């Protein structure tokens, strides 16, 4: 007998939950509901991370290194220029963060010369002194990156790094929500994510011959359509009590 234990927040401590709730409340409290979620996330990143500007670039073929990139949102012309530089040169912190699956934090571009020589030169010419990139990523599912810059050098605080990671996670949710056209109150599934969600994604990918992002979206769509928590659906798939139909 398999007992699926559903906990409200299976993988995180109270501090993290409070933190995320606060950022989510700030997002929800933005009076302009018409402004797209990514724009609000970028604006929040500017204030919470105390950076000059923020850009989000999305990959339309997640996972592939030669994926085409598309600027989704930039708070100002310099942020847009930095995204354009990375696109043109094929190098830079945002691109690297998608490859490593981890944030790339460069508090002083003046001493980062060998990492991405052409990008660094272009960015410094534009007056940029520091860049901090956070991937929109879940395992092999890389959707793009949230790239922040400052005109003066200096590290992010621990709290600011933490804010950047949570905002990148919210951006990941927002991108998937936009693609599947689910209601905005669906936001939050990812913070309840369970290790079985990743395993179930792998199972569905193999069963249906699709990629990992599509597999996750099918599980998510099934959970949404049946009004079940994502972890419950994932647990049933892992236990082989549920097989998703190819057209689900």
């Amino acid at each position, binding site marked *: 007998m398999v007992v699926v234990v559903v906990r409200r927040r*299976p993988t*995180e401590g109270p501090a*993290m939950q409070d933190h995320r709730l606060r950022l989510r409340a700030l997002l929800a409290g933005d009076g302009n509901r018409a402004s797209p979620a990514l724009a609000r996330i970028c604006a929040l990143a500017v204030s919470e991370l105390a950076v000059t500007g923020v850009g989000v670039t999305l990959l339309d073929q997640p996972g592939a290194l030669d994926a085409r990139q598309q600027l989704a949102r930039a708070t100002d012309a310099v942020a847009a220029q930095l995204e354009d530089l990375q696109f043109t040169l094929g190098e830079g912190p945002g691109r690297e963060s998608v490859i490593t699956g*981890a944030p790339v934090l460069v508090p002083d571009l003046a001493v980062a010369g060998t990492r991405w020589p052409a990008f660094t030169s272009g960015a410094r010419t534009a007056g940029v002194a520091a860049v901090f990139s956070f991937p929109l990523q879940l395992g092999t599912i890389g959707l793009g990156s949230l790239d922040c810059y400052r005109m003066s050098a200096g590290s992010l605080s621990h709290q600011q*790094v933490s804010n950047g990671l949570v905002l990148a996670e919210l951006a990941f949710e927002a991108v998937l929500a936009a693609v599947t056209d689910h209601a905005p109150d669906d936001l939050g599934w990812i913070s309840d994510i369970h290790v*079985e969600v990743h*395993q179930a994604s*792998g*199972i569905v990918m193999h069963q249906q011959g699709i990629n990992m992002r599509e597999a996750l979206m099918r599980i998510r769509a099934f959970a949404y359509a049946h009004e079940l928590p994502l972890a419950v659906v994932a647990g049933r798939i892992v236990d082989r009590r549920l097989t998703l139909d190819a057209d689900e």
Partner: protein
Amino acid sequence: MNDQHEQRLARVLVELADTLVDDFDLLEFLSTLVQRCVELLDVTAAGVVLADQKGGLRMAAASSEQARLVEVLAVQADDGPCLDCVHTGEPVLSADLAAEAARWPRFVPVALEAGFHAASAVPMRLRHNVIGSLNLLHTGPDVVDEARVSLGQALADVATIGILQQRAVGNSTLLIEQLQTALNSRVVIEQAKGVLSSHGGVDMDRAFSALRSHARSHNLRLSELARTVAEGTADLNAILPVTPHGRPVVEPDRRRQ
């Protein structure tokens, strides 16, 4: 500790030091470390959880990938010895988990359900930061003694050194990148386990064993192999051979408990 025990410890330390070469795989290293912990400390299971930079704890390695042990480690993001250990920076011990239900309301029921009656956690300390903890779990009540805890601490320190070694972690910026990379790799491994379990009709523990032994015998990094599996570019039959009927070649299917 007797002489035989000391010799085993010495061999383990040499083995672990030997793996700390350039460009080694952190998750593979932690996985070896927790398996040696089980053997050396005579505990039932061991795991490493790492603090993620969002303020949570995430499992990075377990001595077995059986779903119940994974759950016992994962639930400690809410409460349990690991969470207390990371917060205080001190070892946390309990020889009788049944008596700790008020202290750890989420952890205790999951641990007891999985058959564990004693638990301890020792911190992975890096200067003034605690970056995670090593968790020892036992089905009997007698595992928590000073000698085991101090030996556990020595092994936790080796795990910390492993994390420092992987890149020249001279500052906290690189450490954050390093830890988040490891945690994302752990998600990739879970995705790959799902693919292999579907391919071979096996449980998650078997899927992980197949992944790990293939990586070892072909001198591949565990994380890189897992990535190719999760991206759909690996030859799954080379990793986990199945018969034309879709059954694993080696052993019959062991269903998840």
